[in-house]
C-alpha cells in the first residue's frame, strides 16, 4: 500500500469539505489580527464559526450512513502524507464543537465586554478561533502526530483565554499556569506514547498503525505506548485523579470561555481517547490488557461519586458546575469501559448531551456574573424572581444535568444504564442511578436559592440582554429537544460507535 502512486486529483469545492471545516476558522484568526479592527473582530469570528457549522453538518449528513471520507493533505497519500478522515464519530464531534461555538459567540459579545478590557477584543476573538481550530483539527485528523500539533494549538489558546479572567480575579493566572504545566506534561506523555508506537510500527497514520499492531499484541513497547497515550490524553480529559487543573481553570476563566471550553475541549479529548483506544489499539488489544475494566472503570466510578460529592459542598455555582463536569466525564468513561457498542453509544450521546447542557449552565452563570456581580450562591439568591427568563433556562439545563425524563441528560443516562444491564452489571446500573441522586442534591441547592430565598438588597436588577438570553435559551431548548427527539443523536452516536467498534475494518 505504500507504493500507491501520488494522485493529484482534480476536485470540486465539495470534496474539500473535510479540510475546509478546519481551515475557515484557521485562516480567519490571522486575518482578524492582520486587519486589527476591534469592531470587525466579533463579526469575523462569528461568520467563520457559522461557516464551519454548516460544513460540519454537511459532513455529518454524508457519513452518517457509515461511509468514510479520506482527504489527502498536500495530495500525498497516507502514510507518507497526512490524512483527514471523517466518519460518523468525528463528524458528530465536529458538529457539537462548531454548534457550541456558534451559540456561545453571540453570548460572548456582551459577556466579554463586561469582563475583559476592550483593547483585548481582537486578540481574544483570534484566540477563540484558534482554540476552535485546534479542537476541530484534532477531531478530524487521521494522523497521530497531527493530533498533537492541533491539540497544542487549542491548548495554548485555552491557556491564554483562561488567563483573561485575571481582570476579574487574579487567580485566573495561577489556574492558567497550573493548566499549562499539567497540559504540557500531558502533551509530552502523548508524544512519548506516539514515539513508542512509531518505534513498533514505523508509521504515524492511525489506520496504518492499527493495521501493523494487529499481530503485536504482546509487544511491551506497544503496551507502554498505550499507557502513555491514555495518561497523556487523560490529563486533557481530566480523568478523575488527573483532574486537578480543571476546577480552578473553569472557575476563574471568563464566563464565555468557560462555557465554550467546558462544552467542547474535554469532549474532544474524550473523543481522541476513544479514537486511540478503538481505532488504533483496537478492542482486541483492549480485551487482552484488561486495562479498561480494572483501571478505568474504578476511576470512572470514583469520579462520578467523589466529584459529585465535592460539588454538593461548593458555595460558588460556577465551581460547583466545574466539579460536576469531572463527574460527568466519569459517565463517559464508564460507557467506554463497558467495551460494548451500547456502552460506546452511551458515551458518545452523553458527550453531546452534556456538552449542550453545560454550555447552557455556564452561560447562565455568565449572566448572573454580569447582572449580580458573582455566581456565589448568596449572590444569586432570589434571582428566580428578578431574572425569570435566565433562571428558567438554568433550571431546565439543571434538570438535564440530573437526567430528568424529557431532557437530553435522561437519554444518555438511559442508554448508559441499558449498556450496564446488557452486560449484566446490575450493581453498576444502580450506582449510575445513585450518583444521579447526588446531582439532584446540588442542582436542588441552586434551585432553592434561586426561587425560595428572598433577593438580597433592593437594587433593581435587570433581566439579561437578549443577545445573551437567546443563546442560553437555544441551548436550554436543545436540552429539551434532544430529550424528546433522539433521532439525530442516537442514530449518529450508534453509527459512530459501530465505526469505532469495528476497529480498522470500519475505517478502511
Amino acid at each position: 500500500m505504500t507504493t500507491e502512486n501520488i494522485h493529484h486529483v482534480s476536485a470540486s469545492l465539495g470534496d474539500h469539505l473535510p479540510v475546509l471545516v478546519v481551515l475557515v476558522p484557521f485562516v480567519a484568526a490571522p486575518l482578524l489580527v492582520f486587519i486589527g479592527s476591534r469592531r470587525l473582530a466579533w463579526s469575523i469570528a462569528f461568520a467563520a464559526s457559522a461557516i464551519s457549522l454548516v460544513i460540519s453538518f454537511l459532513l455529518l449528513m454524508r457519513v452518517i450512513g457509515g461511509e468514510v471520507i479520506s482527504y489527502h493533505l498536500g495530495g500525498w497519500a497516507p502514510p507518507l502524507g497526512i490524512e483527514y478522515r471523517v466518519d460518523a464519530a468525528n463528524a458528530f464531534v465536529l458538529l457539537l464543537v462548531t454548534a457550541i461555538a456558534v451559540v456561545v459567540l453571540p453570548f460572548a459579545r456582551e459577556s466579554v465586554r463586561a469582563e475583559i478590557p476592550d483593547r483585548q477584543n481582537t486578540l481574544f476573538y483570534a484566540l477563540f478561533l484558534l482554540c476552535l481550530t485546534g479542537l476541530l483539527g484534532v477531531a478530524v485528523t487521521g494522523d497521530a502526530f497531527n493530533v498533537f500539533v492541533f491539540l497544542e494549538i487549542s491548548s495554548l489558546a485555552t491557556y491564554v483565554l483562561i488567563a483573561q479572567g485575571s481582570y476579574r480575579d487574579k487567580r485566573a493566572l495561577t489556574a492558567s499556569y497550573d493548566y499549562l504545566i499539567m497540559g504540557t506534561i500531558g502533551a509530552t506523555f502523548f508524544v512519548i506514547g506516539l514515539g513508542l508506537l512509531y518505534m513498533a510500527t514505523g508509521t504515524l497514520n492511525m489506520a496504518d498503525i492499527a493495521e501493523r499492531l494487529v499481530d503485536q499484541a504482546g509487544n511491551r513497547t506497544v503496551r507502554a505506548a498505550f499507557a502513555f497515550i491514555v495518561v497523556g490524553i487523560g490529563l486533557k480529559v481530566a480523568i478523575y485523579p488527573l483532574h486537578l487543573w480543571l476546577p480552578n481553570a473553569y472557575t476563574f476563566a471568563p464566563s464565555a470561555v468557560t462555557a465554550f471550553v467546558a462544552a467542547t475541549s474535554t469532549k474532544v479529548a474524550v473523543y481522541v481517547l476513544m479514537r486511540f483506544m478503538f481505532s488504533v489499539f483496537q478492542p482486541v488489544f483492549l480485551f487482552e490488557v484488561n486495562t479498561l475494566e480494572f483501571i478505568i472503570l474504578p476511576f470512572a466510578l470514583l469520579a462520578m461519586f467523589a466529584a459529585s460529592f465535592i460539588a454538593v459542598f461548593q458555595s460558588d455555582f460556577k465551581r460547583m458546575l466545574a466539579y460536576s463536569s469531572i463527574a460527568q466525564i466519569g459517565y463517559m468513561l464508564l460507557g467506554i469501559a463497558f467495551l460494548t457498542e451500547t456502552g460506546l453509544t452511551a458515551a458518545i450521546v452523553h458527550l453531546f448531551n452534556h456538552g449542550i447542557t453545560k454550555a447552557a449552565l455556564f452561560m447562565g452563570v455568565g449572566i448572573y456574573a454580569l447582572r449580580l456581580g458573582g455566581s456565589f450562591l448568596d449572590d444569586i439568591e432570589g434571582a428566580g424572581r428578578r431574572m425569570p427568563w435566565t433562571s428558567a433556562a438554568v433550571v431546565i439545563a439543571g434538570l438535564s444535568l440530573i437526567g430528568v425524563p424529557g431532557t437530553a441528560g435522561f437519554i444518555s443516562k438511559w442508554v448508559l444504564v441499558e449498556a450496564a444491564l446488557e452486560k449484566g452489571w446490575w450493581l453498576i446500573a444502580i450506582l449510575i442511578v445513585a450518583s444521579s441522586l447526588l446531582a439532584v442534591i446540588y442542582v436542588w441547592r441552586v434551585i432553592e436559592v434561586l426561587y425560595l430565598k428572598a433577593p438580597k438588597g433592593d437594587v433593581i436588577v435587570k433581566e439579561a440582554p437578549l443577545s445573551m438570553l437567546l443563546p442560553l435559551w437555544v441551548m436550554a431548548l436543545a436540552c429539551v429537544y434532544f430529550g424528546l427527539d433522539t433521532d439525530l443523536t442516537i442514530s449518529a452516536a450508534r453509527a459512530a460507535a459501530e465505526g469505532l467498534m469495528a476497529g480498522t475494518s470500519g475505517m478502511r
Partner: protein
Amino acid sequence: MLVTTAITVVRTRSLFAIVMLSGVFSLLSALLLVTLDAVDVAFTEAAVGAGISTVLLLGTLALTSRFERPVRRSPLPPLIVVLVTGAALIYGTMDMPNFGSPEAPAQTHVSPDYIQRSPHEIGVPNIVTGILASYRGYDTLGETAVVFTAGIGVLALIRLLRRRRDGEGNTKEGASLMRHHLILRVVTKLLVGLIMLFALYVQFHGDYSPGGGFQAGVIMAVAFILYGVVFSLDQVQMVLPPWLVHKLVALGVLIYAGTGIYSFFVGFNFLDYSALNPQHPEHGQHYGILLVELGVGITVTGVMVAIYYAFAARPPILSDEEW
C-alpha cells in the same frame, strides 16, 4: 555530561545558574543530536534551547526574582510519580529494537519511501525539508499556527501594561547603559547586518542544507533584539514599529495558508504545491516549499520580536546592580 547538568539543575537554588545550565543542557543535546545525524534538529535546538529560551528566561528573571526558596513539602510523592513513569518507560524499552538497527520497523516501513521518492517528487536535496514542508506540510502549518498562538497569547497577557507606564513619563528606561559606547555601537551595526544576511541565507538555502524558515526567523529576530539591547527599545521600534510586527505575525500564517488555498482553485488538494506548476510538479513543489518557508520565517521573526518587545517594555524588578 547531560545527566550531570540535569541533576545540578535539581540541586541549584540560584535561578540565574539554572537558566545558564539549561542553556548548557541544550547545547550539549544539540551536540549529541549532530552525532545522531539530526543536523537540522541540532541547529534548531541550539537556536531555540540555548538561544531564544535562555534569553526569555533571563528576561523573566529580570522581571521576577533571582533565587529559589527551598520547598518545605516532602519530595516523596513526586519521586514516586517519576519512578513509576520511568519504570513504565523502561518496561516499554524491553521490546524495542536495538539502537541503530536497520531492521527496526521505523527504518523499514515509511521512511525508505521518503528517501527513495523525495528526490524525484520534490527535487530538494534536504530530505528533512522535503518532508517538513511538503509530505507533512500540514503539520508545519499547524506548527506555524502554534507559534502564532503563542505570539498573540503573550501579547494578550503582557502587552497591556505599557500604556500605564507611558503615563509615568519614564524616559530613563529607554536609555541603555551601553548607549555611549561607540565601539560597541559600530560593531553592533555591522553585526546586525551580517546576522540578517545569514538569516536570509538560512531562509532560502534551507532546501539544500540544514535550516529553513523557522531557524531563519529566529536568527532574524536575534538581529533585531541585539539592536534593541545595544541601542534602545525605542530605537528598534522606530525601525520595526510594533503595529508592523503584529501584521507580520499574521501575514506569515496567511502566506502559508494562502499557498495551500491557491491549490484549491486549480483543482488540487489543500497544500498540494504541484498546483503551482502542474506541468512540472517537482518545480511546483520547490516553489511551494520556498513560499511556505517564507511564511514560517515571517511569522517566527514577528512573534519573537513581538515577545521581546512585550518583555522589554515592562519595568524590571531587579536593577542592573543586583545582577
